[in-house]
């Protein structure tokens, strides 16, 4: 179904929060899903899959242990959102020609928007590679070499992120709408539901604070 990008971002933020991520990471997860869907990529599906996979797992188990050497998680696969946020936080490293490499990354597609924002910051092209595939972005546009199943894998054993200095050809530009499958949308809604307080008679009456009657 076609959604406005704001709708997608709003639901993704609530879903990420409902999945146990911090508000700050949730905000970035939402922008990441927005960015991917604006490029016709299944960002909503990736977030839905990630939230299901990591449901109930403490976020410090899936965040990078440290930002030196090859990044890895302490307990299992790296969360692409906390790893992606860290890439963006360390964007200057890419500008100096230092590559960032990671081991065992869940839903690697979700790393790409963070690399895009890093690219905008250092005003350069940045490439993200995993499973024989490379995605290059200048922040706004995107090109994918040999898009195949690797794009949608649930885990990449290795992922690297680096500034790209060679010619990359034309980049596809973002669209003004996004598509999310009904199944993924329902999953995101389920996670978002966890952030809503169940209504009580008291909250109905008091919480919004309206007057008694509007027939005046």
């Amino acid at each position, binding site marked *: 179904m076609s959604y406005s990008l704001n709708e997608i971002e709003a639901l993704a933020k609530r879903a990420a929060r409902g999945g146990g991520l911090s508000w700050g990471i949730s905000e970035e997860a939402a922008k990441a899903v927005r960015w991917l869907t604006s490029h016709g990529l299944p960002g909503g599906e990736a977030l839905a899959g990630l939230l299901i996979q990591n449901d109930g797992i403490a976020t410090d188990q899936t965040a990078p242990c440290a*930002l030196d050497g090859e990044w890895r998680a302490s307990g299992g696969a790296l969360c692409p959102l906390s790893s992606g946020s*860290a890439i963006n936080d360390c964007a200057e490293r890419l500008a100096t020609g230092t590559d960032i490499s990671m081991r065992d990354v869940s839903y690697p597609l979700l790393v790409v928007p963070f690399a895009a924002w890093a690219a905008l910051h250092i005003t350069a092209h940045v490439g993200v590679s995993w499973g024989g595939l490379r995605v290059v972005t200048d922040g706004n546009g995107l090109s994918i070499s040999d898009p195949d199943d690797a794009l949608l894998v649930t885990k990449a054993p290795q992922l690297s992120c680096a500034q790209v200095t060679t010619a990359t050809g034309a980049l596809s530009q973002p669209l003004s709408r996004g598509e999310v499958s009904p199944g993924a949308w329902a999953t995101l809604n389920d996670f978002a539901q966890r952030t809503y*307080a169940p209504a009580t008679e008291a909250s109905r009456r008091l919480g919004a604070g*309206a007057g008694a009657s509007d027939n005046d």
Partner: protein
Amino acid sequence: MDVALNPASDIPQRDPATVMRLARLGSFHQSRLSFMRILTRRMKREGWTFSRPVFEIDAKGVGHAVYCAHTPDRTYSLVAFAHDLPAEKRSDRVIAEAWDSTFTMFDGVPTAADIERLRANIPLQEAGRVTESELSVSRANRSVRLWDYMVSCLAEGQQPDPAEVAKVGYLMRTTAVYGSGKLGAADREVIAARPECAAPFQIEMLSVFLTRTYVRDLMQHMANLKGGERAVTLAPETARSMGIGNSTGLGMAPFIVNHPMLFNNWISAREEAIARVRNLAAASATDVTLFKGLLVRSAHSAAQWRSEHPIQIEKLQELRQDMAALSAHVEQAELQSDRPWNRLYQWAASNLGVDAQECLASLMLEPYGDLVDDLADTMAHTQTNTFRINGAMSVSRLIGILDDAYGWALDVDWDAKEHCARAWYVSAEKLEPRLGERFEEPIAPYEQPLAPGRDAAALRAALADWAPDDAIAAFLLAHPEHRHTVRRAQVVARAPYAEIRDNTIGSDLLPIDMLRCKLSFFGATHFDPRSDRWVRICMFGNAPYPEDLQSRDADFWPYPNGTVAAS
């Protein structure tokens, strides 16, 4: 207009620590930079034309109408659906499911197929679905007593008593105007590059402007059907006095916290305008005369402003007294030389309450459209690079920002009940933002991040364990729970008016302060709180209708009673 800028323009914008307190934000008044006025000035300047290609409404008041606004480049069409609403279903709450009228702003001119698609969706509001062709979705309910009274009067050949009309001020009030991608509509980014959409909320304001015309026409239509040959047409002066009401609940309060950069840009534009005028070395006799005339009209508007809410009654009493004191001072003060507006502002800051101070701050801008109106184009949020966290920032730099922008919050005991008595949450029912009592309701697990002061204090405490030269990236890896607040702090470091510098969860919080601040930027007047978290206002009261935009003053209309020459 000659503007004599003092070459040593050294009066800076007002200190955010003064401006961003809730008591002051909750006393803001509309100004030249309000979104309604930005729109009416543009419509007149660009010579927009208007048409009503469809008006098919039956004797029960059911049907639809289309109102088109033609800019030099394109057409926007308000599609209105009129309904026969039983009284028991009339509610201004967001949880309502039926309304007297429902609307959408269509990008272009709708075809018959578009109308049928919209007829199946717009009357449902949140339960319906729209497309990228639609720019907003809204609804309105009648003021029942005034509607019935006016229809009866006109049907019987009588003009309604203007005093009765003034008691309410509008025939319908909108209860939500959704834009920016809500319900599937076009995102703001789709229209942001259009010059008429450069300032915030211009489509929503246009929607309300056209809704006002539709409501006048619908009421007249019903009176004509009821009265037949006896019916008379509403006197233009009475029609002009009427605006569109708006009933705003809590949902709007989180907006200004959730959009810190946008909020900064609104406040910053007005503060820059105030600073420019305060820096003027001299004022011409013409400027002073215009100011004095509008001051009289502003006092008249304050006299007409009604509310039954105890807090607002008290505020109004003080405002009226202060306006009288200001008027008396202005009569004897020298206002043409020696930075007259700065002297006047400083006198007000020492002698008047914040409500009158803010009224004056807005009024002082009126003679100086040439000097300040360009700031309208700085009020949208176009700085897309402000979302990214600068992970290379040092811990010591972040501490400096926190101490400066959140200093008020760092010494507050955030565990004390009175300082954290409230929590903002979203209800499962209709996803409505609400404010609850943290210690009386089971809402804390659902709390929204709408207490920047408390969160900044927690961040400041967490940073104490880190070395001054450590990079924020490393801190955030260990403490992702502070990521949201680090982003806010980095925003406020470059946008000093981004943050409310007051407690938004304390037991003494008045959410209506947040609502009034936002609504004043829309251009609302006559704020009428119905509780501490619910307010009714009037929009476009006394504004020209589309057909008299060119022949009447399209700038000073928020100040009723009499006319002044258009600038």
